């Protein structure tokens, strides 16, 4: 091997390594952004907008088969919480949801929504004791709200109007959905927009 060959081999190795390092750094910056502001879902703000009527769904709850209607004007607010048995953040938020269900009984109902095969979800409901929630399986529902990342929450008011929605990564973001209606602010982003206008 002459010096050129060795130099070439070394340079290729360095270029490849640097490529990987750049991706890793970029990814880390991306993760920082996601931590700082709950973005992902709001970056791609498709589906029904805040203030628009929700698409209407008549679904059946898993297990009990009870009818669950979404988007109808029932007079009661409804939080649709999109989750999946394979999503760790969803599991972390389940206790918050349970306490919210007890505390907010007077003001809104909570529906858990997912899609896929029923047996997996039945096992999930059993292992996490979620029988107190209506649990619906519908890929159309997730599609209607363009849910691309989990957990995702949608808050509907008594008339079936979308009041708030967004990706939920922690308790604060979940509570911001609860408060959205009372405060008249759709999301943390909406709040930031108001601050800007003020």
């Amino acid at each position: 091997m002459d010096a050129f060959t060795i130099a070439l081999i070394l340079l290729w190795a360095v270029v490849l390594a640097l490529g990987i390092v750049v991706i890793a750094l970029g990814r880390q910056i991306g993760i920082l952004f996601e931590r700082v502001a709950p973005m992902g879902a709001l970056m791609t703000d498709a589906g029904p907008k805040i203030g628009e009527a929700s698409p209407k769904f008549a679904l059946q709850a898993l297990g009990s088969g009870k009818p669950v209607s979404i988007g109808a004007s029932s007079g009661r607010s409804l939080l649709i919480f999109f989750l999946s048995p394979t999503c760790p953040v969803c599991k972390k938020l389940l206790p918050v949801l349970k306490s919210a269900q007890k505390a907010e009984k007077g003001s809104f109902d909570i529906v858990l929504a997912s899609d896929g095969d029923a047996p997996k979800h039945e096992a999930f409901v059993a292992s996490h004791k979620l029988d107190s929630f209506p649990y619906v399986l519908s890929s159309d529902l997730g599609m209607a709200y363009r849910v691309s990342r989990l957990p995702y929450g949608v808050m509907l008011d008594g008339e079936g109007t979308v009041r708030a929605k967004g990706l939920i990564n922690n308790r604060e973001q979940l509570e911001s959905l609860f408060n959205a209606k009372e405060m008249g602010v759709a999301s943390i982003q909406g709040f930031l927009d108001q601050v800007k206008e003020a």
Partner: protein
Amino acid sequence: MLLDPLVILIACGVLIAVFVRAIWHKLSDFPVFKALFADYEILPQSLVAPVALILVVAEAAIVMGLVIPATRQVAAIGALFLLAIYGIAISVNLLRGRYAIDCGCGGSGQGLSWFLVVRNAILIVLGVLALASPMMRAISLADAIVLGLSVITVWLLILATEQAAANDAHRQYIRNSRGKG
């Protein structure tokens, strides 16, 4: 146009990688792809499902065509065509001011930006290179090694720039929502 065969092979290799990933993203959640495709509002609703399927089949055909030397040039023309259509579809929506729809690029969701148009333009240049006729020369082991390493390097660059674009979208969003210039 006569080009060194190695250049053509590298261009083909990168295009194959790009299209394989595109197919993978589309098929891994086809219903979501259809919904995102519908969001582009290019086609009437009734045509969305069949055209979405045609796009996936076309991309698969292009990958197959690029792999087989005899069909390489036809496939390269197909790739140019598709990349141009995607670029136009993205540009139309950017001009409409619809930045917030998901680009359907896969992953965790990325809005539209001119970066995507530039990326498509660069891929179109690669498509033109892949279209060229090769000069006659034997392919050595060194060629094969350089081919592999080049495709990997370009691939890493594509991933890194996409990540940078996604980060920049975050930054712009935060800046806009806080009203700082």
